[in-house]
């Protein structure tokens, strides 16, 4: 490791009333990266964030910040700031007072505070909103104020807990780009919590996929999407066909009643595996061509592509294609070896 990571979680566990929210988490966050904690609700991503912020104390394990143990440091002494899911703006203060809150505690003089507030408001495109009451703002504007209030303190790390969850789709897309711009411009480490896989793929440098309080996979968006470590990750990141199969030997797998060539090796002879195939990787070919034959059961128009369910060998295959085959037509399916992903079996919930 060339550089000391800015945050390190070592063997962190946390229980709530007997249920394990986090099980022995090990994670490091590099300086200036955009790291996303991704997973379904209840996977422990928010708990992880709250432990970094200091709102929760881990039952065991330790948190390090720039190499120093901060496990027992209260939140107000940590060099991180949080953007909350429901913004948590102070309702009895106007926009400028909200943003200045942290600066006033640091006892900066009024001139500096005024200048910094104006600067950060410009950064989040809310110039001239100083005197507005926070309750008169729209959701998107409140979100910007919340981000400004955290950023104005120039934190080393910004923690964001599903900050775009309450916004509509269009606004969310816009804010994603803007957040990424701010992160690049200020060179701050972002730790971002979301359950939206698309959001994670768009914004992150590193994605941490979590499930049931454990980390499933850590990697770049491309790695996570193209090389999911197990069927859960594959299923969570984008849609997938997950079919039970058996590894006959290296680069040969048996599933759906046929033997398929594949590119994976290193499994035991006859090991039970999960076969993951992305819906866009199954090609529709005329009847008789391709390994599998089936009948189109349903067609849904999705905008860019059609989503078709094709029944073949007792399995419903989800297929994404820009070409449409009508319901009831019999067609062939072709799957290329490099599009067949073999994974060790895990229990899917």
């Amino acid at each position, binding site marked *: 490791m060339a550089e000391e990571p800015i945050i390190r979680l070592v063997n962190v566990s946390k229980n709530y009333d007997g249920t394990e929210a986090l099980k022995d988490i090990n994670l490091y966050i590099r300086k200036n990266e955009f790291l996303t904690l991704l997973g379904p609700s209840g996977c422990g991503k928010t708990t992880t964030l709250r432990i970094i912020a*200091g709102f929760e104390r881990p039952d065991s394990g330790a948190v390090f910040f720039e190499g120093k143990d901060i496990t027992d440091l209260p939140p107000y002494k940590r060099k991180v700031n949080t953007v909350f899911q429901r913004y948590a703006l102070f309702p009895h203060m106007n926009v400028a007072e909200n943003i200045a809150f942290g600066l006033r505690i640091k006892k900066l003089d009024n001139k500096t505070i005024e200048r910094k507030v104006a600067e950060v408001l410009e950064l989040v495109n809310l110039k001239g909103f100083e005197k507005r009451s926070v309750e008169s703002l729209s959701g998107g504007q409140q979100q910007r104020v919340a981000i400004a209030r955290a950023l104005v303190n120039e934190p080393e790390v910004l923690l964001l807990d599903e900050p775009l969850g309450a916004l509509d789709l269009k606004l969310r897309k816009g804010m994603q780009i803007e957040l990424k711009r701010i992160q690049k411009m200020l060179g701050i480490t972002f730790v971002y919590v979301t359950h939206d896989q698309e959001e994670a793929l768009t914004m992150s440098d590193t994605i941490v996929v979590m499930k049931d309080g454990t980390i499933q996979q850590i990697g770049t968006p491309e790695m996570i999407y193209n090389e999911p470590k197990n069927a859960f990750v594959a299923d969570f990141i984008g849609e997938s066909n997950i079919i039970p199969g058996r590894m006959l030997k290296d680069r040969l797998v048996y599933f759906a009643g046929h033997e398929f060539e594949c590119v994976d090796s290193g499994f035991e002879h006859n090991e039970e595996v999960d076969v993951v195939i992305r819906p866009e990787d199954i090609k529709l070919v005329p009847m008789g061509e391709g390994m599998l034959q089936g009948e189109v059961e349903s067609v849904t128009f999705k905008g860019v592509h059609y989503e078709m369910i094709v029944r073949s060998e007792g399995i419903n295959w989800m297929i994404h294609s820009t070409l449409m085959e009508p319901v009831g037509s019999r067609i062939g399916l072709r799957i290329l070896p490099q599009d067949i992903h073999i994974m060790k079996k895990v229990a899917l919930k």
Partner: protein
Amino acid sequence: MRRTCYAYPYLVWMAIFIVVPLFLLLFYTFTVTTHEGIRLTLEHIKRIWEPLYLMVLLRSILLALICTVVCLLIGYPVALILSGKEYSQNKVLALLFVIPMWINFLVRTYAWMSLLGRNGLIDMVMEFLHLPSVQLLYTDHAVVLGMVYNFLPFMVLPIYSVLTKMDKSIIEAAQDLGADYITVLKRIIIPLSLPGVISGITMVFMPAVTTFIISRLLGGGQYILIGNLIEQQFIVVGDWHFGSAISFVLTVIILITMGIMRKYDKEYEGGAIW
């Protein structure tokens, strides 16, 4: 809107028990009965400005203010503790606070009499410790104590309810921005709980300023507060006109107080309880 017919019973109720008595109060306040019949007058109102009555009025307001301040000083920390993490899960402590309210307040006040009185519990302890006997009952202190004891829950509950409803993430946000507990309390919790404080103050001050039972029992027969004065005028003296005039002045004072309170509290919550 045919539904409005459901409101009639309440309108009748309010007319008989609120509107009519208020008009009767106004009638007695501003009239006098002589041989020639009934005529309008301000003499009853003027009589209140006699030093004797004015002193009673001022003392009532002073004692009620002291009681309100003491209730606030005790009640706010109690509400804060009750709404805190440790107790919000189990409501036992909050319940303990409410249970005394289920007992008739006369009974509770009599209990204080036997605690404070000559040969009462406190007196006996003092005697046992060979300390000089102290006169507790029939003093200002006893009256304030009785009022604080009886009205404290009215201060605690509205503050408690505002504090428990407060969004915890706002407090976390303040801590996150570098505020220690004292700063969070000063800048966030107290300002945001003001509506509860204001309804608490109203709910304590009003019964305190009008009480006559507590002052009679704990202050003794010679102890006169404005409530006792009104009671006396109606029941002992039989001067309904002067009794009404004092009630009228008291009502005006309370209305003014409420008006001032309302100014400081845009989202008025306590008013509905009255």
